[in-house]
């Protein structure tokens, strides 16, 4: 299995767990995943920005050929969800793909993302599901 190292996962915990984004103090652009320098205006002055935990499904696809870490979760539904000012790419769960529609309300859920074998770390993060 190939997945993120424990130090990298640990560094990304605020963005994986809580969708902590960054906003440029100069031009106001919001970035998720977070960036250290604003690609739009070049400013290094960025502040924390909390993304909302509800949004709208922009598009999605159904992966039937999946990375090894997700072999036991086929088919994998991956979608783009508009959360406030940004679109966020993520896995969609608790939904039959044939019932998903672009534009529908989605909510953020907290799930296991990668489980490193029987003895390694359980890596958690955000996923999406249709809002009931």
């Amino acid at each position: 299995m190939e997945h993120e190292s424990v130090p990298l996962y640990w560094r990304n915990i605020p963005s994986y767990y809580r969708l902590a984004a960054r906003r440029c103090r100069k031009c106001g652009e919001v970035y998720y995943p977070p960036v250290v320098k604003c690609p739009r205006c070049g400013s290094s002055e960025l502040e924390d920005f909390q993304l909302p935990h509800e949004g709208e499904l922009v598009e999605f696809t159904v992966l039937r050929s999946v990375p090894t870490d997700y072999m036991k979760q086929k088919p994998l539904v991956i979608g783009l969800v508009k959360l406030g000012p940004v679109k966020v790419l993520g896995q969609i769960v608790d939904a039959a793909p044939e019932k998903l529609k672009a534009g529908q309300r989605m909510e953020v859920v907290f799930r296991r993302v990668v489980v490193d074998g029987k003895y390694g770390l359980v890596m958690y993060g955000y996923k999406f599901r249709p809002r009931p």
Partner: protein
Amino acid sequence: MLDSELVSDPLRLYDVGPMADGAAAAILCGRKGVAKVLGMWSSANAVPFNARQDYDVLYSAREAAERAYRMAGITPRDVATAEVHDSYSILGVLAAEALGLAPRGGLLASLRGGSEVRANLSGGLKSRGNVMGATGVYQAVEVVWQLVGRGPFKRVDGSIGVIHSMGGVDATSTVVVLGL
């Protein structure tokens, strides 16, 4: 192809360029050779995938092509053959459009309408195979062979060919214009 298994809806197995082994070589020199490099450009699309507004335009390819054409002093109409990056079938379509070989969203319609779009006569990454790092030189060799009518290729009607190589989905593109 339409009966092959789904990989990522709506792409099926035979929409995906298979990984392949391969090597290609070309000699570049200042003397007169078999073909000339008339123009080249590399462009990057810094906007990450999730932040893009459109998903049906390869901006890096479009910009690299415009600049390389300007350097070579040509227009898309002058292109006799092109080898474009089609690791997935849809990317080949979008790349050909980005190179100006068809209007945006118009390639499939013009093919259905009977027009000829001379791209990926080699089969491309999709059918020749994705030789990864060797791909760009592979494409250069193939375009030159098409211009001179060598090897498996018949000579194309014209003296200018273009190659397009891409990293990621519209992350970086390089376009090179070759001419006899």
